[in-house]
């Protein structure tokens, strides 16, 4: 018996770790956030399990829960797209590869999106793109920090260019969120690969990766086939990406929630300082009417100086 590194569901009372071979008892495995006590490989979590590790109990409220995929290309392959969708729904109890909503991280309200790799490889089609974009827009509207947990093999092939376009859509929404100085923390989990990596997961203020997670753009097999050579050990792991400056930290699953809370507090403090700065006129000159008077003086001054410039220009032109 072994644990599948992609599914992370052990059978029976004990199982062998697929990463290191260590015997793990199921009870211990689940109590320990699905982390192997031997090699500390972080097995994938379902969206619900992930929410449990990050949010205060009972605080999650889901958004857009009933959005489902259409089949815009009427895609035919070895299996019809509709069949794959139905199988994934039955398998996971989810309607799509991402759950979005809001909740609390140690009492701090956040907007959150969590992907589930079990749903067609966590691939991003129109629904994943739309739900994440709405979550980003909601965070911007509410000025609430955004957390996105990525777990994806890439863009969803069965929706063709509709899928690719979701990369641009989510990225554009994040540009608007950044304009509002709302913090965005990305958590890259096993695996975060393909086109999806080249969109929202890479565009965060802070990127946290889980130990051992596969992170990259092009699949290792494709690179091997192109280069005709073996890849270096540890290629495209979270640790590799840390070494190359692509992520901020690689930390254990149990520590992520606390780290998010600590970061948000610091960003919050900075933002409060900025607000105070814009209010500082009122601090020095008490009384609204005095402030208004000052503003008027400034405006008159501006008008006057504009008039002065015009007169001077005319003088210079010899009129």
């Amino acid at each position, binding site marked *: 018996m072994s644990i599948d590194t992609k599914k992370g569901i052990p059978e029976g009372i004990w199982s062998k770790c697929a990463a290191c071979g260590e015997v793990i008892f199921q009870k211990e495995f689940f109590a320990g956030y699905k982390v192997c006590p031997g090699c500390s490989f972080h097995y994938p979590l379902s969206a619900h399990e992930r929410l449990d590790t990050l949010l205060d109990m009972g605080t999650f409220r889901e958004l857009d829960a009933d959005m489902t995929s259409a089949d815009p290309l009427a895609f035919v392959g070895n299996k019809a797209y509709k069949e794959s969708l139905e199988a994934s729904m039955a398998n996971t109890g989810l309607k799509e590869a991402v759950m979005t909503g809001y909740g609390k991280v140690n009492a701090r309200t956040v907007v959150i999106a969590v992907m589930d790799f079990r749903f067609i490889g966590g691939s991003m089609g129109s629904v994943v793109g739309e739900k994440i974009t709405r979550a980003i827009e909601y965070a911007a509207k509410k000025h609430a920090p955004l957390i996105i947990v990525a777990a994806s093999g890439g*863009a969803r092939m069965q929706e063709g260019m509709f899928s690719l376009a979701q990369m641009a859509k989510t990225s*554009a929404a994040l540009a608007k969120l950044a304009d509002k100085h709302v913090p965005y923390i990305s958590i890259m989990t096993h695996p975060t690969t393909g086109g999806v990596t080249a969109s929202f997961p890479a565009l965060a203020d802070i990127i946290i990766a889980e130990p051992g997670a596969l992170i990259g753009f092009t699949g290792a097999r494709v690179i091997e086939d192109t280069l005709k050579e073996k890849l270096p050990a540890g290629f495209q792991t979270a640790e590799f990406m840390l070494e190359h400056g692509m992520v901020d930290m690689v930390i254990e699953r149990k520590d992520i929630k606390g780290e998010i809370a600590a970061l948000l507090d610091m960003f919050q403090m900075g933002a409060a300082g900025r607000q105070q700065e814009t209010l500082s006129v009122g601090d020095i000159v008490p009384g609204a009417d005095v402030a208004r008077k000052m503003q008027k003086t400034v405006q008159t001054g501006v008008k006057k100086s504009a008039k002065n410039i015009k007169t001077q220009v005319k003088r210079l032109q010899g009129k």
Partner: protein
Amino acid sequence: MLDFEKHIIEMEKRLDELKRLSVGSKEDLSLEIDELERQLTEHKTKVYSQLTPWQRVQIARHPDRPQTRDFIEMIFHDFIELHGDRLYGDDAAIVGGPAFLDGRAVMVIGQHKGHTTRERISCNFGSPHPEGYRKALRLMKLAEKFNLPVITFIDTQGAYPGVGAEERGQAWAIADNLMRMSQLRVPIVAVNIAEGGSGGALALGVADRLLMLENAWYSVISPEGCASILYKDAAKAPEAADSLKMTAEALHNNGIVDEIVPEPVGGAHRAPNATAENLHKSLNRALDEISAAPVAKMLDLRYAKLRAIGAFEEPQPKG
């Protein structure tokens, strides 16, 4: 020579020969010539009006098809090539710099595959590294600073699959372009001139207008890649090309592509100048239309366009 071109090229040869013979001959060959010309036109129209997606892919990959540097030469004047991303290196897979499009100074940026073996190797067959995407972004920022519209040419099978590309953040470079292009304060027109493979193509494709040459393809995954996933057999690429709905016509119908730029019968490789003339007109028209709106409005429209792409179902539509 492509399979379906064989018969056409044979007929053309025979026609040339007849014409040559008729010059010094006492015999009147004009009837035969007329008849053959009629047959040729009829056959060509028949072949090219029912091209399969896979046949178009072959046209898009024709070694004589005009590429970015060729279009720059045929459409623009006084192009000044600029180099380097100011961070790591210069990627020959992406060419860029300011040039004149008739009376208008613009910034042209595009992927270039190369014609000769030597050139193709030096530019990695048009597959950019992160430094290529970062060079592109640097030139776009330069264009923004000096208020030059940006024109991009897409022609790549995908971003370069290599160890160095992953080490230097291929996903991060692409994502950054998606985000920054969505807010670039100058008009952007993107043209897919041949091949648009996945995120590596999209990284030059966030635009106010997306144009596509008639025989170009644009897809979330190459037909070969899709076939090896679906059927474990890259030779089934023709079927995958059908399923992915990757032709200009299919993408125009799906609202992803704004305009199809016609290629003369036979494809761009048989009439590069006429193709360039068509594109030249389309570029001017697109820039005129985009520039008519003030910058803020232009950016709103660009966001709305990116935002609107997606096909999904919701039980209770919002509103």
